[in-house]
């Protein structure tokens, strides 16, 4: 039996979410004494194979990309189905990214197998069944479940699993796989890609300054913007703010917006609805500024200041300016 993991890469190296999926996959493979195999689509850089070996991958399948000039979800799924059928397979895994969830759902639809999204852990010991835990409500709840069908199709919650290299690197064997595709397998594919220039990316920012309903109006975001500029931070907002049309949705932090993982999240005037907390649970430090000491955000923050953000944030900006010391070196 094998555990197969779809690995996304950017042509240079493996993406972070896939490293987390590999760590999850290795734990499952160890519990069922299976080898861990990786599947990659497109031109793969040598360094990527080194990374895979360091994460315990002993076999890699490089799917020839002739017909995959660009991402084609059904084509990727077809290649995974072929590889899963070519040898007994315990589980097929992917990162819980847009692409990972999409491809695995196609695999589920093509095979009739169950697909379980955003898993946190999985193991298979003596029994045939896989025991797993997965996120519900964007990670606000966890479900423990059992799946008895084989192979299990699983995606991995990238904000709930740490990327951990294997204790010792595996020796890796690389195979080229030529999928047999029909025309309809590549009918849906990426036809165009455009780069956006938005400055600091919310998902990757080291510091995020959050503004909620407590900011009061679209105009009142000025001081939050100013603080963010001063600290080299990104601005994030709550769903209440985007629903009111005060700010664009691509600044929304939460279950249906962007998931952030900064060193510091300074949440100003945000009460802390479940939907919002699901998006900032990976922040290392959370500091809340809120008028209500009983707001849910206070019980999820490390530090809090009780008071009106529209007085405190401008005062903070002034204090930092007076120190004459802008953002620390990154």
């Amino acid at each position, binding site marked *: 039996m094998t555990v197969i993991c779809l690995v996304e890469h950017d042509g240079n190296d493996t993406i972070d979410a896939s490293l987390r999926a590999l760590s999850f996959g290795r734990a499952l493979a160890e519990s069922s004494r299976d080898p861990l195999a990786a599947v990659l689509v497109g031109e793969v850089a040598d360094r990527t194979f080194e990374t895979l070996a360091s994460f315990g991958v002993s076999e890699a399948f490089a799917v020839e990309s002739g017909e995959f000039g660009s991402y084609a979800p059904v084509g990727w799924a077809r290649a995974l189905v072929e590889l899963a059928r070519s040898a007994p397979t315990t589980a097929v895994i992917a990162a819980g990214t847009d692409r990972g969830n999409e491809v695995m759902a196609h695999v589920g639809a093509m095979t009739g197998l169950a697909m379980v999204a955003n898993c946190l852990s999985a193991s298979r010991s003596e029994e045939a069944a896989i025991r797993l835990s997965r996120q519900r409500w964007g990670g606000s709840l966890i*479900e423990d479940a059992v799946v008895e069908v084989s192979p299990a199709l699983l995606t991995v919650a990238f904000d709930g699993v740490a990327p951990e290299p294997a204790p010792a690197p595996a020796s890796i064997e690389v195979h080229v796989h030529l999928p047999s595709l029909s025309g309809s397998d590549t009918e849906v594919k990426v036809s165009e890609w455009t780069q956006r220039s938005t400055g600091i990316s919310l998902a990757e920012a080291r510091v995020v300054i959050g503004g909620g309903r407590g900011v009061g109006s679209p105009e009142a975001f000025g001081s939050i913007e100013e603080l963010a500029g001063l600290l080299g931070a990104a601005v994030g907002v709550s769903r209440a703010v985007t629903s009111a049309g005060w700010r664009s949705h691509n600044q929304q932090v939460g279950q249906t917006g962007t998931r952030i993982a900064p060193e510091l999240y300074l949440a100003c005037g945000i009460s802390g609805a479940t939907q919002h907390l699901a998006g900032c649970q990976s922040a290392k430090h959370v500091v809340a500024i809120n008028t209500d000491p009983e707001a849910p955000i206070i019980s999820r923050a490390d530090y809090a200041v009780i008071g009106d953000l529209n007085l405190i944030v401008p005062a903070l900006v002034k204090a930092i300016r007076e120190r004459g010391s802008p953002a620390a070196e990154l």
Partner: protein
Amino acid sequence: MNVLVCIKRIPMVGGKIVLTPDAQQVDTRMLGFTLSPHEECAVEEAVRIVELRGGAVSVLTLGPPDAAEQLRDAAALGAQRLILLETDGREWGPIATADAIVEAVRRDEQAGHGYDIILFGNEAADTGDYQVGIRVAHALSRPCVTGVKHLEIADTALRAGREFRGGDEFFELSLPAVVAVKEGINLPRYPSLPGRMRAKKAVIEQSAPEWHEDPVRKQALRVPVTERQKAEILGTGIEAVPALVGLLEQLGIVA
């Protein structure tokens, strides 16, 4: 152009989720209900498509009789036909849900009411299974794209965009097609008063599909353990600013 939107009734959880004593469900006794945020945007998108190109918006939900409330909410936003696939309180997994939707779509098609576009929310807010739309698309042999935050409809095709690694990627699909959208694709309107009046009187077409068990068996739900306890209060009002600056310094945010 006929558009079908598939929605799900979910509890409106506030700041904290409480479980039932047997840890099988969210305790909803004190909660109101709504539709998943992505789906509210799917309804809005469908209404906009029909406003531009003519046709009708149908909204379908699989759920308990009370899910009629969410169908009426969708009608208040502008949906014309309301379809309830009624369940008896048991939970439906994504495979059974997709099967029931496919059956309903085929039934409508046979009655001469085919759909050019079937819209889903990208994932339900509660279960987050990310797959019902794709399963429906495969069963109906239609092209499908998910995670969509930008949609343009032409006569025989659509163009869909979504975020990918700091940029946007675009797909072109021929119609009929299945699209799963994300919140942010639009800003849903508030229901108008006439819309709400219409919704009250709207007829709901009902049927009861057959339940089958999901291969993934739930054991229990639990609230994740977080290391964070109640926050340390740095102070009140602007007097707390020096402490706040000290903290930023300690965290290495300001030099």
